């Protein structure tokens, strides 16, 4: 059971990752994609607040959804900011505001807690269409 003290508030900032882009092109949405996409980079102070170690899993939740991914310590990271590559994982966390002129990619309010759950499988992040 996760203690509420271990929860932190984050602003998720999505960014482009050339390695993820090339993996997606070459191999599609397989294990290599998941390995590069299911990552959030946090400041060392946030890693400590979460009582995490580098490489341990964390669950990130927003009003739009939640994902489990790997937390990495970023020595240049800003406290309260979680950096995520643009991917299906980040897209799960992004909602849609009909009034906004742009999609939320740089300022997604989220909560993070340590977890022992498995990394969210890619198949759970694909939008399924139940077409006859």
């Amino acid at each position, binding site marked *: 059971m996760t203690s509420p003290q271990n929860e932190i508030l984050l602003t998720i900032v999505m960014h482009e*990752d*050339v390695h993820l882009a090339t993996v997606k092109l070459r191999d599609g949405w397989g294990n290599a994609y998941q390995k590069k996409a299911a990552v959030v980079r946090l400041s060392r102070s946030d890693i400590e607040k979460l009582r995490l170690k580098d490489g341990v899993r964390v669950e990130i939740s927003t009003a739009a959804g939640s994902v489990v991914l790997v937390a990495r310590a970023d020595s240049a990271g800003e406290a309260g900011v979680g950096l995520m590559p643009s991917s299906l994982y980040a897209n799960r966390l992004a909602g849609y505001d009909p009034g906004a*002129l742009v*999609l939320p990619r740089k300022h997604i309010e989220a909560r993070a807690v340590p977890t022992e759950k498995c990394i969210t499988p890619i198949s759970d992040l694909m939008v399924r269409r139940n077409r006859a």
Partner: protein
Amino acid sequence: MSSKTLVCTGCGCLCDDVQVEIDSGRLGQIENACAKGAAYLQTAFNPERRARSTVRGQPCSTESAIDEAARLLSKAKRRLIFGLDNSTLEAQALAIDLARKLGAVIDDASSFSFGPIVERILKKDLPTCSLSEVKDKADLLLYWGANPTATHPRHLSKYTYYGYSDFNPAGWYPRVTLSSIDVRQTELTAMSQPAFKIKPHGDHELISGLLGESPAASDQARQLSELVKTSEFCAIFCGLGLVHSLGGDFSGFSQMVQMLSQSIRVAVIPLIAETSMLGFSKLLRKETSYVNQVSFAGSVSHGREFSFAEQVHNRTPECILIVGSDPFSALPQSLLSRLQEVDIVCLDHFSTLTTKAADIVIPTAAPGVESSGSVVRLDGDSIALAEPIKNGYPAQEDILRQLLEKVQP
């Protein structure tokens, strides 16, 4: 074995010096391409990663898929055409003709990314220039919310910072000042002197400081102002970081550019990742006066309600034609989940999440590799793609022309 020089359509740089060797239809050595360009070329020659003709998941001939696509587009009362940012001008023009014939809505990814800045550039509200002019004349390169090392890997080496052939005996030296504004540390900020690290959504505050609107302008705003004013020609490369931080409202940014332009020359270039987003915006504007979000139902109308995102959110279209774009891997899943009741027709060269989700998939030639034509680079220069390598796939233009002939409004 044959050797060929291509214009790489792997990103918005459109590098024209990429050499490939082809041996019996197989890709051999690639020279001059970056990681993204090489991956694009390798994917084009990998049959496992190519789109295949399907109707509701069942393999079929391309002709059957086109017929079914024409039937669905004709049957629907409300149609939406989306994508086209990685298409040639010829394909973009045909798609606009198709939208006009069908009375459809047409939109592209600029409506949730670079649209506001592209519109200001095309209206000449923001000054711009070509990349060759940047290389020849600019003495300050300012990357704002942009990291070309991730999005346009050869941008710095081919067009800007490293793009000079002269050197001194001691080795390479920078001829221009490289600076950047970003919320995080990147390969680019590490090279920048200086790099301005701001908080998420801190761009507006920085612009206000530069405009003197904030009585207590930050040290960063003062330092940036001095840096720009001591240059003669500042090229500002705007990335998605800036677009999203400003929420698409570039009025303050335009004021800032106008103010700086009183003392130095400033040129603004959007760092667009797609190969011809600017081409689509220019064509649509020429036809309708608008760069995106256009409806041809009745007369030409324009508005936010015609953006792809709003159309999907409101569950408006009955049939969507997506051309060379993969919204299913790029947009929020909460939005895409509203596409359950819509017929989706997808034209693409690669297998994507959108081709997986589509009711009808029509495979096409990869622009720049298997089909030629013209595109408009991110600086507005028109680029002719090289003669194609014939791999048997029809060009997007061929498919769109057939659809144009077959659909009944």
